């Protein structure tokens, strides 16, 4: 099937089977490999992307469901410079192997875009839907807490 949607600000077309997930479409058809697959059953959150600004697990969404929607992956968040959220991840050593990181960054971006004043407990609650095996989470929470300021001031990126 031919589908068309907006990916990171560009209109894209893809020829997919009805069973193709959005994650596979983004990675294989559209060659944006920043979205990672670690469980493919919707638990780990590594594949989280933004669909119309909401955090969505792209392994649980079919590509055809993205028709005419606005999809943003981790690649679509930053330009030449790191975003304040990405810079905070680096500063706080909130990643080691980096495989889960795109999912954490998209999830945290969606959270802070909606709730720039989220407190630590709320941040932990929302991030508890993503698995990280390296960091112990504490540095991730510190990074997200620090990045809140930029969302309050600029509404995000």
């Amino acid at each position, binding site marked *: 099937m031919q589908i068309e949607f907006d990916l990171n600000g560009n209109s894209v077309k893809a020829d997919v089977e009805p069973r193709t997930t959005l994650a596979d479409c983004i990675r294989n058809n559209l060659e944006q490999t920043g979205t990672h697959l670690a*469980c493919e059953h919707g638990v780990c959150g590594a594949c989280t992307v933004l669909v119309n600004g909401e955090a969505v697990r792209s392994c649980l969404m079919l590509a055809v469901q993205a028709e005419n929607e606005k999809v943003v992956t981790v690649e679509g968040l930053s330009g030449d410079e790191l975003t304040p959220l990405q810079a905070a991840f680096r500063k706080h050593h909130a990643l080691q192997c980096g495989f889960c990181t795109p999912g954490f960054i998209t999830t945290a971006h969606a959270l802070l875009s909606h709730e720039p004043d989220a407190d*630590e407990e709320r941040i932990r609650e929302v991030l508890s839907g993503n698995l990280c095996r390296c960091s112990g989470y504490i540095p991730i929470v510190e990074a997200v807490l620090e990045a809140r300021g930029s969302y309050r001031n600029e509404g995000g990126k």
Partner: protein
Amino acid sequence: MKVSNSYIGRPMERVEDLRLVRGAGTYVADVNRPNQLYAVILRSSTAHGIIKSIDTEAALALEGVHAVLTAKDFGNAVPRIPLRLQPLPQLETFHQPVVADGKVRYVGEPVAVVIADSQAIAEDALEYVGLDIESLAPVANRAHAEAKKSLLFEEHGSNVAITWKAFRGNADEAFKTADYVRRERFRVQRHAAMFMEPRGFVAEWDSAAGKLTVWGAAKTAWYNRRTLAAQLGLDVEAVDLVEVDVGGGFGSRGEFYPEDFLIPAAAKIVGRPVKWIEDRREHMMSANHARDVECEVEFAATRDGKFIGLRGQAWCDTGAYVRTNGSVGPRNVAQYMSGPYCFEHIDIKSSMLTTNKTPCGTYRGPGRYETDFIRERMIDLAAQDLKIDRVELRRRNLVADAQMPYPLASITPYDSSTELDSGDYHAVFDRCLREFNWEEKSKLRGQLIDGYYHGLAVGSFIEGGAAGPKEEVRLVLEPGGLLTVYMGSSSVGQGLETIMAQIAADAMEISYDKITILHGSTSYVKDGYGAYHSRSTVMGGSAILVGSEKLKCLIREKAAAHFGCAPGDVSLEDEQATFRQSSIPFGELSEEPLEIEAEFFNKKYTWAYGTQAAHVAVDPGTGHVKVLDYMSVEDVGRMINPLTLHGQALGSIVQGLGGAFLEHLVYDDEGQLLTGSFADYLMPTASDFPKIESITLELKPCPNNPLGAKGAGEGGLIPVGGLMANAIADALSHLNVQPMELPLSPPRIWQLAEDASAEVSPV
């Protein structure tokens, strides 16, 4: 500007992060080759059985399917996977074939490889393979294994693959005369490293050049290359393993698995590149499992609390085969039981049982996590029996600074003698208690507050690192002054590029941003060893120091020729060679790159050490445990990057908490894996353990390497199980609840509290 000695010890933000936070890393699933096909592996759903037939016809008839490969396609004799560590000849019987060869021995064992135009078509084709397996009685646990009614390897005559024996002094005599002896039985459940990035390979065979290239290497590329070349009958030089970004290892990733052979072999057979990426369920039944130890242990002490001896027998459920590093955990269970304490008499046997489960290998702190649970529990029980404060009891028995180097127990049948190299164990112990505020918090012990009973625990640990025999580097100073360091160390996500650039920058007195670290791929150096046993910083870092001295000699020679003086008259500073008043930048010394190779040899392990303390609150009505406070203090000799080291400690502790409370690979009596998804296999999340502190010290530099560093990637996790069990026992001391088994899941704690309550106040 003088740049010397300015990077080591600084919390440098990581070079790696610049690509990884943007999603611009390249993991193996991101590697694609022109014209590639996709592999999917058919795995046994039977735990134990004889393969009667494999009918591939219908699968081959499916459009887009190129091949269905089974044992008969991989030569007259199906290759076996040799042991990388402790390669004892008596274990050859238990080497895993790269694909099931007549018999299947665990659920998940590869039986066939389907090659197709897409992963989806290959997965569809699995349904069309007719696999007829005649079931044999499964050996699903220790009781089955010991009953011997069913044998995994009939020719061996038993399900005990091997028994390791740690010994020191004369335990039998010492136990006869000891004032105090206690015997207990402990269990640590099967769990696993469970790194986030699934394993995978892309393999390409260039028939014209006779060259095989495999992307997706990790941990031990050079060893795996030799193994693969031998299995395929190729020269070692005809095989290149390429390391791209790696999404976590923790001991499990990068060992030579069946797929390490199957995917390259398939590429060679079909003549096109082949890509394989496992899914999570597949990972859970195929990558190494770990722990799964039952142990009966006796502990002897004098009346006044001086430890005398440890004696016991451990049964390690090894799974269906002995894999590349399968002996490490069971050996460590025996050899490292004594931990950081003085025990003059040790007699511990550790038997590896073959069962119809996924084979085991190392997972961060192998054998140490298990034995620390056992030993620290025993110490708290002894403290209770002997009526000696458990803090004081530990203090009395820690190895003293003056006793260093202190030998650990000897081990047989594969000798690996080692001694604790250095340390002030008492100073770190006291520092931890102070930082944790032990005295103040002790007031809460046993208190019931808002439905939760409060308890504390403290425990000490040792962490081995820096396995030999060597590491190799190649330093290339480019015209223009950029330095490239090629090295045999490999990255599994721990920040190698950053740490090694810090070491190289200081050693060469070259600015950090002029250095590129390239690692882990077999084309970089002749014979690398890789990343295991917390060895990269010590072994790879020390090799950089050795290499830097050689490169400086070469620079001096070149400069001497330029100046017309003797090399000894040239001084090097600020990236310039200077003779009297004349200077020349390194980058202008030669129009050709200046290149040297160097090796660092070392067979002595480093022994980092530390103490942890924890404060928990337990709800006996639900079995729920809150970890309120966690303090870890570790001495690593010398710290290269506080930021990354702190990250290792925190991440490691949380993994340990996962093992203590949540993670469990459960099998039923038929050998079926019941926990095949992240919905069944619980791992810590961001809301579980919010308060953990870690302090790293540089008290006692390691005497055995020029950096003075000690391997420190595993320590955090090692004492966690014991600490949590002791803290729970402390909280529920009014009930005399004594956890002897991990995980400390809510149902288990609830049951222990229920049983104890019934005993305390019978209805």
